[in-house]
């Protein structure tokens, strides 16, 4: 944390764990009878409970979206650039709810938590949950918090899919869905990258079929490789070029296979750090949730018919150099909304950082996001 707290920070925040005994029926057929969600909130709920905004996280995200947990924290929450007083999601006006999804590894019920039925960690026995399951669990959370209708459900990437699913599954429980750098379904190429990541993990000899906790080990090499390949898809050729180019760590080629280029060393560092902090089973689960997401699956591949179930207004944003979920994917979604006569606004933001651009503030991104959310705030009397 910086020595003095910036005035646009939500400051020190404390996550809370909410326990649920409402049975949650999952898409796979299993039922979670007892489950926890870890939640952070910023700002305060107004009297008529109309100013709540739900933040949905992406693959490796969690509930800690803004502010600091302790003065010693080096970095704030993962979306601190967009959440805070005076920021696009203005905590002076909105009550912001940010959660760790089921199957996550930051405290909510998932593979690395105890299965109450066995007293053991779930591990690989934790059911494969879907975006739809997450949204249903978030709806139960909304009930608990006394929120009948979100002012907006907001997310980037996999988070955007949740916002989209909300609009279809619970059309009268949100006024706006903000879908950033997302896609209505993964392409074969997207699934292929996920498969490489999963194979890296499952083929690690320390994986032990997902029961690595019992063996007191972690599939570090597999998770590291998974993160490395994932990380490449989050950046753009141009941004990697600008950051690393062909820069070497030493003066000259070493004629070996250690990390000689800066980009190699960067990827290894990122991968290693991630492999210590993230759960491999959760990584498998999150990538599978991505693969399965396809709201048009239920409407004979007619996305417009799927979108016709929605009632809310949409803001869809894409980034010019995002090659993971390209602007064309967002446009496909927007076109389906147009065909379904849903109210949608769309912009493609010029940004060099590839998929990661949704986490990085630029003047135009900030202007659009702030303007749109300010109108949402006016509409709901926040």
């Amino acid at each position, binding site marked *: 944390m910086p020595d003095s707290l910036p005035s646009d920070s939500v400051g020190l925040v404390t996550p809370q764990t909410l326990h649920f005994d409402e049975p949650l029926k999952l898409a796979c057929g299993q039922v979670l009878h007892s489950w926890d969600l870890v939640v952070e909130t910023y700002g305060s709920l107004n009297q008529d409970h109309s100013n709540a905004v739900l933040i949905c996280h992406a693959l490796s995200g969690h509930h800690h979206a803004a502010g600091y947990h302790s003065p010693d924290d080096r970095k704030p929450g993962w979306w601190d650039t967009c959440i805070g007083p005076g920021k696009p999601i203005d905590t002076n006006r909105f009550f912001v709810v940010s959660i760790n999804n089921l199957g996550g590894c930051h405290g909510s019920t998932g593979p690395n938590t105890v299965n109450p039925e066995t007293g053991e960690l779930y591990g690989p026995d934790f059911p494969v949950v879907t975006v739809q399951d997450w949204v249903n669990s978030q709806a139960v959370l909304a009930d608990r918090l006394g929120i009948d209708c979100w002012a907006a459900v907001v997310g980037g990437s996999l988070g955007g899919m949740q916002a989209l699913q909300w609009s279809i599954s619970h059309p009268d429980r949100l006024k706006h869905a903000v879908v950033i750098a997302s896609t209505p379904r993964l392409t074969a190429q997207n699934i292929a990258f996920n498969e490489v990541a999963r194979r890296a993990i499952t083929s690690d000899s320390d994986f032990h079929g997902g029961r690595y906790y019992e063996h007191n080990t972690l599939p570090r090499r597999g998770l590291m490789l998974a993160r490395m390949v994932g990380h490449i898809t989050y950046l753009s050729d141009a941004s990697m070029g600008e950051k690393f180019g062909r820069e070497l760590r030493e003066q000259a080629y070493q004629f070996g296979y250690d990390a000689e280029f800066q980009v190699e060393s960067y990827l290894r560092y990122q991968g290693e750090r991630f492999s210590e902090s993230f759960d491999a089973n959760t990584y498998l689960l999150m990538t599978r949730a991505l693969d399965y997401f396809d709201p048009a699956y239920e409407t004979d591949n007619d996305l417009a018919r799927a979108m016709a179930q929605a009632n809310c*207004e949409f803001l869809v944003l894409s980034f010019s150099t995002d090659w993971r979920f390209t602007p064309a994917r967002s446009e496909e979604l927007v076109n389906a909304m*147009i*065909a379904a*006569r849903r*109210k949608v*606004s769309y912009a493609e933001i010029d940004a060099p950082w590839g998929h990661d651009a949704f986490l990085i503030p630029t003047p135009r991104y900030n202007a*659009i996001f702030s*303007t749109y959310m300010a*109108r949402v705030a006016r509409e709901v009397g926040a």
Partner: protein
Amino acid sequence: MRADLEIIQQWISPGSHILDLGCGDGTLLYYLKQERQTTGFGLEINPDHITECMNKGVAVIEQNLDTQGLSNFDDDSFDTVLMTQALQAVRRPDIVLDEMMRLGREGIVTFPNFAYWRLRWYLMSRGRMPESETLPHKWYNTPNIHLCTFRDFEALCREKNFRIRNRTVVDGEHQDHWLSRLWPNMLGQIAIYRITRGD
């Protein structure tokens, strides 16, 4: 209130689904939503205008008519397709008009008249490309790459078998004036056309 908004509004039935090509800052769509409870979208490429549309609550799609076309919209998906002061700035006005008539039952088009007497006089007396309050750019940097006259436009509509249902000719401030009604192609600065398919 801008006079052209008032005129266009009269041609829009309540609850219409409309598309505005080059919707600018969303003023027209916002006005029509208030006055006529319309739904629909604006297309725009100017970032500041797009943001302003969002501020007004006008649904705006970032889409470039020249490079992206309109193929993402279905046939007959709108009651009215609007294009105000943008026809002269697109790469192929004829194709855009075809598309307007494919997407909408009706089209409303406004554009500046290059045969307006001041422009004619400017060219004749100075021998240089005319500039005016309505057309303030230089020949080399103007976005208005396909200027035409009322007669040109009407000839194109005949060629395409589009029916001109209404035409209102106004001055630079969008005011109706008896002089511009008297001799439109000489004395009118801006025309507002309402067109439909001829069949």
